[in-house]
């Protein structure tokens, strides 16, 4: 099947859906979901293929190329899956709001732009799709008005600044080598002078760093993520900023090449240190937030630091960790934004952590989703975040980088704190009176959350499924192959067997359950009951005194 066709469907569907919306909103909703499901299925079908084809010859004397390989496939499948789930979530979320046709148009257009980015085989088409994605995202970030307008401006100005830097880089490559094809540039770059490579790296890394929100390029992200409509926040945080990650991988390992990159040890150290700072600072800023979505946004900045650290560190294990963490972050951060979006939907737009609480009784499914999502962010065993973070920690310790390892571990400690803050303030504690009669999240919101939760656990217990693809990507860059099994890694890098962990946890859980069953009967005490601090004292033994 031609990949060009895939792009035509991707770019045709937003406009088709928009005009269907003028006829009937039901038709529009159905068509939007069907088309994105079709796209996901098509992307799934081209697994393992690799090809290059020209889809437009002669744009200012250049050929625009589509290139498909394992790297672009991994990103493409993440893009289509996450945006399909976000779209399904939107069905209920956006219903009844204004400009819904426009909302769907831009959702699908951003999706198409991102697909274009990962499927392009030369820098001109890359840039074109990059810009289409950037300005369409601007339109949706501004959608909620009010504070969203300032967030949108901040985003688009930083994004424009990044893309002009990238344009200079692209045209400098063109002026020097006369080609913009990734495969041909790779040949030229391997013999280029170090000064020139650093010049190119700085230009491109500012563009990708802005999109990926590495410190000091991060200021656009927290307002943009928190003010955008929640399903779109999931797309932004889950995959849109990962286009920066894709750019980094492409630049460092496809265009510049592993060997040349490892020679630039100063640049590599700077990138590593920036990544470590990006893990540390935002994690603790997240802890101070009182807005649920802003907390998640800062958490995104921090987690993106892990991804960049993994990729920039440059060993086969860290690379696998970085790419796997990209995939994992896409799943659990999308899940968290969707879950917070569901809470926001039911409470009519309340995101303030201090005014929520106790929702576990009203929205139990959403609570479980958030629980699984936060376990993923923290990297609790049996979630996918554990495996990727374990790879990263392990490399950092094995390769003797105690400071980077400390940053990664310390960042996780902060992650535990803010994850707890999120869960506690939204779901635990007392239910405020005005929320006593809110309903569960609607079914169409529950489905995407369920699928994402399942994926987190599945990739946590059987990480071999995505790791096969990730290992193939690493091999294509010239990294040593990892010994991947369905339950993790084997042999030389140290055995990781998640299935054993799963079994062990199951046994422990069973034992705990048996002990509880065998022990004395549990007495349920109401939450407001402060008499014995929740200790198991039967009610009839309470002694109250008045006018003692």
């Amino acid at each position, binding site marked *: 099947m031609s990949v060009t066709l895939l792009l035509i469907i991707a770019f045709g569907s937003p406009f088709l859906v928009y005009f269907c919306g003028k006829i009937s909103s039901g038709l529009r909703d159905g068509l939007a979901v069907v088309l994105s499901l079709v796209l996901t299925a098509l992307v799934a079908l081209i697994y393992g293929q690799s090809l290059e084809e020209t889809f437009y010859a002669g744009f200012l004397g250049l050929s625009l190329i589509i290139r498909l390989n394992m790297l672009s496939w991994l990103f493409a499948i993440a893009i289509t899956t996450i945006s399909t789930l976000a779209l399904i979530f939107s069905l209920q979320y956006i219903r009844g709001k204004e400009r819904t046709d426009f909302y769907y148009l831009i959702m699908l257009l951003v999706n198409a732009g991102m697909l274009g980015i990962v499927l392009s085989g030369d820098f001109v088409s890359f840039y074109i799709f990059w810009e289409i994605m950037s300005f369409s995202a601007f339109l949706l970030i501004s959608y909620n008005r009010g504070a969203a307008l300032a967030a949108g401006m901040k985003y688009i100005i930083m994004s*424009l600044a990044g893309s002009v830097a990238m344009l200079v880089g692209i045209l400098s490559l063109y002026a020097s080598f006369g080609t913009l094809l990734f495969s041909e540039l790779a040949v030229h770059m391997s013999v280029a002078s170090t000064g020139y490579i650093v010049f190119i790296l700085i230009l491109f890394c500012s563009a990708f760093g802005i999109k990926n929100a590495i410190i000091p390029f991060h200021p656009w992200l927290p307002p943009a993520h928190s003010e955008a409509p929640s399903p779109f926040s999931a797309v932004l945080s889950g995959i849109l900023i990962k286009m920066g990650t894709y750019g980094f991988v492409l630049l460092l390992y496809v265009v510049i090449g592993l060997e040349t990159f490892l020679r630039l040890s100063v640049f590599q150290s700077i990138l590593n240190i920036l990544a470590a700072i990006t893990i540390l600072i935002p994690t603790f800023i997240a802890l101070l937030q009182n807005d649920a979505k802003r907390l998640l946004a800062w958490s995104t900045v921090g987690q993106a630091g892990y991804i960049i650290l993994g990729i920039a560190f440059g060993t086969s294990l860290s690379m696998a960790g970085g790419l796997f963490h990209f995939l994992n972050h896409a799943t659990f951060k999308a899940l968290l934004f969707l879950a917070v979006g569901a809470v926001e939907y039911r409470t009519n737009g309340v995101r303030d952590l201090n005014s929520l609480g106790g929702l576990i009784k009203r929205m139990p499914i959403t609570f479980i989703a958030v629980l699984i999502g936060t376990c993923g962010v923290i990297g609790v065993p049996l979630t996918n975040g554990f495996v990727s973070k374990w790879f990263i920690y392990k490399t950092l310790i094995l390769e003797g980088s105690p400071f980077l390892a400390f940053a990664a571990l310390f960042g996780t400690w902060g992650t535990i704190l803010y994850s707890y803050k999120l869960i506690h303030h939204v779901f635990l504690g007392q239910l405020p009176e005005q929320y006593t009669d809110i309903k569960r999240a609607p079914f169409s919101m529950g489905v995407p959350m369920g699928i994402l939760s399942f994926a987190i656990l599945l990739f946590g217990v059987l990480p071999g499924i995505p790791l096969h693809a990730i290992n193939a990507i690493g091999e294509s860059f010239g990294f040593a192959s990892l010994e991947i099994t369905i339950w993790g890694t084997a042999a030389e890098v140290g055995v990781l067997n998640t299935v054993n962990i799963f079994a062990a946890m199951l046994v422990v859980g069973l034992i705990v359950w048996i002990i509880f069953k065998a022990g004395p009967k549990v007495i349920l005490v109401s939450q407001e009951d402060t008499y014995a601090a929740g200790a198991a004292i039967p009610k009839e033994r309470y002694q109250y005194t008045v006018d003692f």
Partner: protein
Amino acid sequence: MVNPILLIAVPLGLAFAIPLFGLLSQKIQRYIPVAALGFNLILSLILIPRVMEQPVIISIGGFPSPFCINLVAGPVGVIFSALIALLGLLVAVYGLDYIKEGATEKYHILYLLLLTGATGVVLTGDIFNLFVFFEILCISSYALVAYLGDKSGIEAAVKYLIQGAISSSLILIGIALLYGQFGTLSMADIARNIESASAVSVFVPMVLLITGFGVEAAIFPLNAWLPDAHSSAPSSISAILSGIAIKVGIYAIARVVFTIFGAANIFLFITLLGLLTLLIGEMCAFSQNNIKRLLAFSSIGQIGLIVFALGFATSYGIVGGLFQIISHALSKAVLFLSVGYMIYRSGSMEITALEGMGKRMPLTSIAFTIGAFSLVGVPPFVGFPSKFLIVRAALYKEELLFIVLIGFVLAGTVIEGAYFFRIIQTLYFKEKDTSIKREDTSAIALIPIGILVISIILLGIFPQTVTAVLNSAASELLDRFEYIRSVLG
């Protein structure tokens, strides 16, 4: 045999015939500019493939060159005349509905004269003839700026008139000095003899000519008239002033610098002047609250970009500059034309008055958005190839200086993005009143806006359709000896 002289003769004749048609019927008058410019467009398009092989030289009056007045229809001239005719035609169609009150007859005469003057400037091969056409253009634009007859319009027109008159005197003195030295007015003949003259005696007329034309081209620091004039004129005229009139000034400067003087030592100065114009224009535009003043300042910025690229004096630079002329003409015309009806509906030029226009005038707002995206240089609109070509030209110079300069230019485009994206937010995401009724631009005015939008998108996706012509235009400007040879034989 299609004669390029018709490009000037037909609209000139029809312009003066408009009052006569008025005797027949009042209604027919307003269709005369449409017909004349439609004719010019078709003729120019027919001429393009021919002049790409060989420039068409017409000697008026039967005298041999260099004693006669020449028309030189080379690639540069025909591209400009096609652009003038296209934009003139679309704005004329827009004017059918937009210009309803006031002295409509005089509007149509002056409008057609303005475009005739512009066409004359780009086609003539005689420097005094160029001056005459230039004056036709300027004088009609002074009058048209004051068309609405309000206080600000007249003030702006007088301001424009004074600066324009001074600039015309400078041009005239420059031409007189050249005539005194070389005894000829044919540009090719002057160019042939320029090396024989002393450096100082060439330098003075060159400075006079560049300064004189620089006022019309709105190059910093000669652009004080522009913001007032562009914002006080009716929007259709603003579109023409911004899209055509200042480009004709640029053309004149390019012709003087490249063909007549071949002044390689001032190219860097011109590039720096362009950069300065760009940065000042964009920064002023950023702080405007009046939408038409903002667009006017943005025009100054874009002009700076064109001058910047032309100053490279490489074929890449000139192709980039000329492409930018086309892209700016199309995009700025869309912006002015769509804003024209928004102002008409809201009754105010303040940017805050545009709130809710996305609901009230959806099609017009989309046109504005696309024009703005295009000016910022976002693909897939026409501004992207032009930004691409200019950056490419700068990097092909392979000097550190130009990388630094292009950095400043791109910083300018980020500023431009900032204010245009802010307006887009105003259009779509700011209205408080939810019960806005839809009242879009009238259908007849939407046609030219629609055509402009389509051409912005098509040229953005298929820029190669014009770059071939622009390449031969660039070689015409750079190879002055070829120009001299083809005119003088």
